[in-house]
């Protein structure tokens, strides 16, 4: 099955908890070297469960995966050596100092002190925490804590990094800072990154490819661009003063225009590459000496993609309230 480009190969991976909760349901996908791959899904979709299997926290119920060339069920130790993980919850001991805890992490990976100390310093610098290394971790803010966890996850210089909701609960500014560190990792260390999130902007800002996961199944996979394009392209809304004249046919003749809807002087145009098309439409109108009253360009967001694939169906049904409650309860207990 060896696929030369794939650093992760997942085959029919399934996890059933307590013989009843199917958290991950027969998923298969590949992640290529150097990619930032995003797992996008609502609460309880099975994101963490997938990561926990790939990072060998617990074995799958069925199916398997190769991570960095090792089988997660047969060679978990080899997998653990080659990956870095930053779990969803904060893991660090808040009563240690940052320096102590990152060295503790190095010890877990058997890194000798003479390598660990300069490396820890380098990593703390990477996430701009070098000045607070000697402070206790419980004095760190939420954003510092996340960045610190990120540094700890890098202590063994992994080829592949797992980030479970790396920006959960952070404010927008801090989130952007974390994103910049993630992009830096990819660029400077040619690291492959698998992250989960339920923030759509995050996928847009970071990911080369995305899989949308819901109820343990992958419902859609592709580049953010592809997914958005799959929705049918951009929307240009344009208004002209001359409400009695119909220019629909003339607009439709322009290349890449897919659909035009007119109501009075207002046109709603569905098109590919809206930003290149808009000037052409403006040209057409001006050449005819009509007057533009307004123009508006919307690109489809991940929001709409997400809604399209996860939102509509089952989620709105009444009967699901119980299931949602149960789910929340299980998550709470599982997190204890």
């Amino acid at each position: 099955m060896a696929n030369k480009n794939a650093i992760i190969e997942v085959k029919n991976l399934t996890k059933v908890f307590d013989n009843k909760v199917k958290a991950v349901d027969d998923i298969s996908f590949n992640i290529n070297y150097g990619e930032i791959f995003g797992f996008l899904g609502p609460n309880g979709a099975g994101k963490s469960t997938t990561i926990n299997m790939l990072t060998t926290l617990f074995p799958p119920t069925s199916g398997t995966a190769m991570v960095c060339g090792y089988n997660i069920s047969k060679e978990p130790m080899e997998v653990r050596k080659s990956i870095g993980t930053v779990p969803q919850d904060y893991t660090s001991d808040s009563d240690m100092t940052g320096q102590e805890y990152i060295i503790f992490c190095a010890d877990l990976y058997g890194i000798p002190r003479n390598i660990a100390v300069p490396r820890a310093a380098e990593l703390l610098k990477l996430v701009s925490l070098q000045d607070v290394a000697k402070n206790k971790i419980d004095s760190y803010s939420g954003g510092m804590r996340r960045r610190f966890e990120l540094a700890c996850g890098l202590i063994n210089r992994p080829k592949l990094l797992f980030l479970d909701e790396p920006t959960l609960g952070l404010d927008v500014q801090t989130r952007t800072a974390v994103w910049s560190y993630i992009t830096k990792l990819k660029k400077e260390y040619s690291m492959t990154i698998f992250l989960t999130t339920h923030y759509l902007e995050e996928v847009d800002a970071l990911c080369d490819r995305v899989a949308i996961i819901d109820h343990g199944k992958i419902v859609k996979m592709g580049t953010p661009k592809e997914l958005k394009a799959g929705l049918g392209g951009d929307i240009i809304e344009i208004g002209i003063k001359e409400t009695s004249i119909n220019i629909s046919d003339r607009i439709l003749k322009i290349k890449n225009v897919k659909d035009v809807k007119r109501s009075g002087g207002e046109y709603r145009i569905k098109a590919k590459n809206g930003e290149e098309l808009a000037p052409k439409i403006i040209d057409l109108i001006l050449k005819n000496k009509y007057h533009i009253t307004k123009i508006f360009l919307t690109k489809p967001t991940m929001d709409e993609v997400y809604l399209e694939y996860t939102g509509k169906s089952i989620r709105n049904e009444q009967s699901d309230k119980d299931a949602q409650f149960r789910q929340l309860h299980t998550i709470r207990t599982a997190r204890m």
Partner: protein
Amino acid sequence: MPDKIKTNYNKALEAERAAEYEALNNPLHGIWTIANRELKKWYRVPLLLIMTLIQPIIWLGLFGKAANFGSLFSGASFNIPGVNIPASVLNNLGNTLLTNTFGTTSYFSFLSVGMLVFVIVFAAMFSGMSIVWDRRLGYLNKILSAPIPRGSIVVGKVLSGVVRSLAQAAIVLIVAVVLGMDTSYINPVSLLVAFAAMFLLALSLSSLFTMLALRSKDWQTQMTIMNLLNLPLIFASNALFPTKIMPSWMQTIVAINPISYAVDAGRQALLGIAGANPLWFDFLYLTVFSIIMVAVGMILSLRYLSK
């Protein structure tokens, strides 16, 4: 990154990797790291340490000194009106009575050894329960995803519990000596014997509590149950009172209770008291109990950790 730098970087990386992997080949890798972190948490917070020792020390001070059975029977405090028994006779009588009951004339010394074991039981329980917090705080996931065998994680945990228990017992012993425990039998050998017995008890109880804590979903109930269990277990042993004065049904419990064997061995070693069992039998019982608890604890913990 330019390609040249990248290659250099990768070369340096490979060299470092080789050093790391060598350490990982050591089968004991991780045990000390994990145990050390536990111990750090413990000795770093002196207040917590003091808090855990306050209870046994107060018991020693209040209970051991207040229930000074010796003074009940001394010539100064006790006499029968009209019958003038000489004080020396009364003192003698008192001492014989005490020696018959406690094996020594000092109830305080008798209780001190019981308190050492009391400390072991509670320290083992608390260190076992700490794994519940590790799981809640995500720390357990961190060590589970590191290249450390599952077994080493459990061993590291149990080991730190044992070290903690023994260190606390040592502190209580020093306090007891300062407060007037009989030291005439204390020497390096007797200390070694007493601490060996306590080591076995600490090892078995730490394994047991670690296993229980790992499997419990609801830590609050677990904590309550353990607290409810611990005190009766101590009362139903020879730690506080001699077995002789107990009702016979209780004596049966005492005879099964492993705590009694650690106390019995400790008293024989530290106070030179004739024990309920020969010393070798105390050790045999404790060893067998430890082997069973460690085996069961390890197997169940491992199974839980790799579920």
